[in-house]
């Protein structure tokens, strides 16, 4: 069965600190990988996605993620966080042939202190 594990449940950082959120997945086949962000009171928004090609993908708002196939990982990074990055972050995986069935991790709540 497919699963996604996010290692950090709650991360607290000061502004300008660097961020790395861990994500490992288990899936029997070719995968598409995603990071979503959910700001308070808002819907899930796509931060970035990996389908194929360059394993280092860049998303919106300065976020990037690296797909390491041998480690089944897709960690999210940002060199310098801002107060406005306070939100919940979800890693998700789908099979390469079905975009409509995603398996999500339990999320990481990021709090950035000004």
């Amino acid at each position, binding site marked *: 069965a497919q699963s996604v594990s996010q290692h950090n449940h709650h991360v607290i950082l000061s502004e300008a600190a660097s961020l790395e959120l861990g994500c490992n997945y288990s899936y029997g086949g070719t995968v598409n990988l995603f990071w979503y962000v959910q700001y308070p009171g808002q819907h899930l928004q796509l931060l970035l996605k990996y389908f194929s090609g360059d394993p280092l993908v860049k998303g919106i708002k300065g976020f990037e993620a690296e797909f390491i196939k041998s480690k089944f990982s897709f960690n999210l990074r940002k060199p310098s966080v801002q107060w406005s990055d306070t939100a919940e972050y979800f890693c998700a995986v789908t099979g390469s042939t079905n975009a409509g069935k*995603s398996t999500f991790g339990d999320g990481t709540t990021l709090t950035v202190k000004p």
Partner: protein
Amino acid sequence: DAGVTQSPTHLIKTRGQQVTLRCSPKSGHDTVSWYQQALGQGPQFIFQYYEEEERQRGNFPDRFSGHQFPNYSSELNVNALLLGDSALYLCASSFQDRANQPQHFGDGTRLSIL
């Protein structure tokens, strides 16, 4: 271009009642997926509808059922409500034949069971 819209925003029901939630997909999308997001957890896949048929189903009991209409909109029905059904219910839409494009999510319906 309208995104995914869900109604109602909030709903309060009592145990044993039945509820219907509604979703209109993003313009052009033909596939609708439903997710349940309990407090402190990531979204869990309930089922997916395409061409008015349930195509895939997650690990949810038969009390959860759905429907897709010719205009691609969808309903989620839950019978014999339990306290544990309290959650945010998310609708997501996508293209069935474009697996390399991500789902778009609505704002969700917050269901509270008393």
